[in-house]
């Protein structure tokens, strides 16, 4: 035995099959260990017991369901087993569905679909990952309908079927020794409990994943009470019904009052435990992130500590990454703010000069805003290359227009002296803005240059006109005083030669 295990171990092929060493080689289909006995979330009809059982045993789920239903009919044994398993089996955790549905859950091509009238919906084909070609379309539609939250309907079907079975037994039970007046209330209680528990089952401990459907709780409670009353009023007169109902209610209330503190205690303990687990997970996430990014960067910085520029660039890039992690930049994906942050990050990475970006307001990206981001990027790129820091960019998203200002502290430049073949300013900033209906203007100040961009925008709900309209010439783009601060607008003057530069 040991030798065998060692030999196979060296062989290294089916080593896992021998780990517990409980016997000779398993058949090939058992090479993977038996999946754990857990209730399945996928492909479940009531609570996923049958699906989980089928997976664990490696038999088709339909067979399990048929057996459960068939054994339920005479003495309710299947039902008892089901409820017992429901109470004891763990629900599957957030397992990857691909992992959860192992190949052992083989499709059952020829499995007979039980008649819904007798099988009572329990065998309605919602088996996990079984693909049956003959009923493919019907099954898919049925499955989506079932998963769309109509479980209660299935449960109702089951209940009606069970009642029908019980009723049939009652009517035809003259020969058989069946106490219908016993069976009917019990069936009512069981169905009520199923209603009640099905809601409990789908509810997460911390905040319901979906709202509890109180109607089903009430219906379940009502059925249970009716069943209990039915059990107790057996053989008594109708006038005593209210007394019995009152007694049942009083008993239920008493139980509720007595058990409430315990349930509350359990509930709060569960919450605490879950909160602790969430914290632990978050902590692990953060640790993983720190290891992947921060520690790596620190190692790089130590190795290149002589190169101040590289160190500064690495530190800045890391800072940006960490900020985006801390402040959850992912949530803003696809908005102007996120695009600008990314563009400024690129510029910083390429040149190592920090850019201070301030954005007020935000809106989803479109092609015009994309042009604006590219123009801002170009202006910032010019600033970090030719001017001196600090470089700052301010973008204001207003109701009518998005305005952007890129400011540096360099000596500035004269647009006339820039050679025509240099596409940077004229093409990438001014031309681009004009093509998208915006304006650009470049102001030279005493201690630097400021590029001002303005792009008219429409409210998201307004229809977009076919042609882009140029910005109104008198738009209050910036709080400037044109009379004394000579600045130039290029919005309506496509010819760059007409531009003046402030001195």
């Amino acid at each position, binding site marked *: 035995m040991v030798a065998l295990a060692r030999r196979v171990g060296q062989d290294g092929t089916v080593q896992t099959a021998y780990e517990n060493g409980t016997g000779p080689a398993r058949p090939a289909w058992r090479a993977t260990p038996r999946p754990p006995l857990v209730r399945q979330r996928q492909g479940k009809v009531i609570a996923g017991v049958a699906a989980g059982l089928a997976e664990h045993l490696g038999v088709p789920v339909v067979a399990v369901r048929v057996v459960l239903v068939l054994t339920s009919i005479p003495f309710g044994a299947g039902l008892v087993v089901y409820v017992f398993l429901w109470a004891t089996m763990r629900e599957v955790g957030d397992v990857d569905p691909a992992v959860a549905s192992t190949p052992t859950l083989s499709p059952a091509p020829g499995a007979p679909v039980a008649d819904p009238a007798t099988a009572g919906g329990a065998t309605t084909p919602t088996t996990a990952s079984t693909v049956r070609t003959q009923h493919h379309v019907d099954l898919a539609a049925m499955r989506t309908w079932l998963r769309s939250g109509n479980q209660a309907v299935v449960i109702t079907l089951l209940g009606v079927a069970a009642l029908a079975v019980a009723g049939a037994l009652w009517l035809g039970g003259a020969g058989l020794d069946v106490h219908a007046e016993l069976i009917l209330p019990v069936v009512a209680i069981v169905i009520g409990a199923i209603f009640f528990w099905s809601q409990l089952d789908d509810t997460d401990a911390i905040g319901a994943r979906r709202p509890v459907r109180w109607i089903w709780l009430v219906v379940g409670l009502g059925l249970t009470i009716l069943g209990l009353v039915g059990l107790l009023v057996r053989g008594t007169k109708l006038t005593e019904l209210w007394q019995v109902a009152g007694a049942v209610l009083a008993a239920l209330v008493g139980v509720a009052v007595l058990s409430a503190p315990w349930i509350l205690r359990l509930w709060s303990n569960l919450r605490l435990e879950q909160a602790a687990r969430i914290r632990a997970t978050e902590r692990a996430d953060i640790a993983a992130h720190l290891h992947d990014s921060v520690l790596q960067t620190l190692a790089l910085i130590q190795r290149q500590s002589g190169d101040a520029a590289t160190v500064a660039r690495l530190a800045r890039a890391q800072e940006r990454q960490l900020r985006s992690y801390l402040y959850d930049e992912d949530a803003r994906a696809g908005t102007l*703010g996120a695009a600008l942050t990314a563009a400024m990050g690129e510029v910083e990475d390429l040149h190592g000069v920090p850019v201070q970006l301030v954005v007020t307001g935000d809106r989803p990206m479109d092609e015009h805003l994309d042009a604006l981001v590219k123009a801002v990027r170009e202006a910032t790129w010019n600033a970090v290359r030719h001017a001196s820091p600090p470089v700052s960019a301010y973008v204001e*998203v207003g109701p009518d227009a998005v305005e952007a200002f890129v*400011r540096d502290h360099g000596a500035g430049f004269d647009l006339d002296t820039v050679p025509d073949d240099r596409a940077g300013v004229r093409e990438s900033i001014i031309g681009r803005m004009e093509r998208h209906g915006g304006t650009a203007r470049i102001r030279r100040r005493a201690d630097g240059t400021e590029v001002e961009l303005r792009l008219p925008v429409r409210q998201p709900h307004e229809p977009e006109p076919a042609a882009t309209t140029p910005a109104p010439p008198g738009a209050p783009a910036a709080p400037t005083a044109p009379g004394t601060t000579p600045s130039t607008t290029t919005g309506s003057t496509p010819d760059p030669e007409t531009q003046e530069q402030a001195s």
Partner: protein
Amino acid sequence: MTDPRTIRIVIVDDHHMFRTGVRAELTTLAATPRAGAFTLEIAGEAGAVESAVKVITEQRPDVVLLDVHLPGGDGHGGADVIRACAGVQSGADVPVRFLALSVSDAAEDVIAVIRAGARGYVTKTISAEELLTAIGRVADGDAVFSPRLAGFVLDAFGATAGEVAEIDEELDRLSAREREVMRLIARGYQYKEVAKELFISVKTVETHVSSVLRKLQLSSRHELTAWAMGRRLL
């Protein structure tokens, strides 16, 4: 011009390295002659809420450089220090002024410390010269806004959406002039550049900024806190 006054400061930050760095930078810079210079005296340091309160009440400095995140207290960091030191007066019998200094971009941190009573908010990446200017300004009782804080104010008061106060005293909106000042500060303008741009004096700019600070501290604009919770400065 010749104002040979001494500004006494206390540095409160839980990172010893940062305190040492700021102290060295400020001491070096304050020693070099500058226009309109004041001399700087670092009266003390602290690394937690309780020790900070103790040092501030003992030393009674003019300005406290205050980190937003600090251990101790009620868990609100810098805001706890400001509240505990309410009523403490500096040697010149004016209230001790607080300048918040933080790496945090979270709007809720900023709003918390400003509403607790800080006279300004700058990020730790600020240059030493700018920090020195900011200290001088805060010591004079003026407000110091970083571009980020200005952007935050514009956003929080709905100024970018075109909301403008009809009367200057209205607490829940910025006046047109205040909005212009905030916009220029957000664009990276220094106060004197703002003044030049708007043809007003630096003193008037300071008045406007102080008025915005007052609105930020006193406004009950309902969006302000909720807004701050859901966002961070960019």
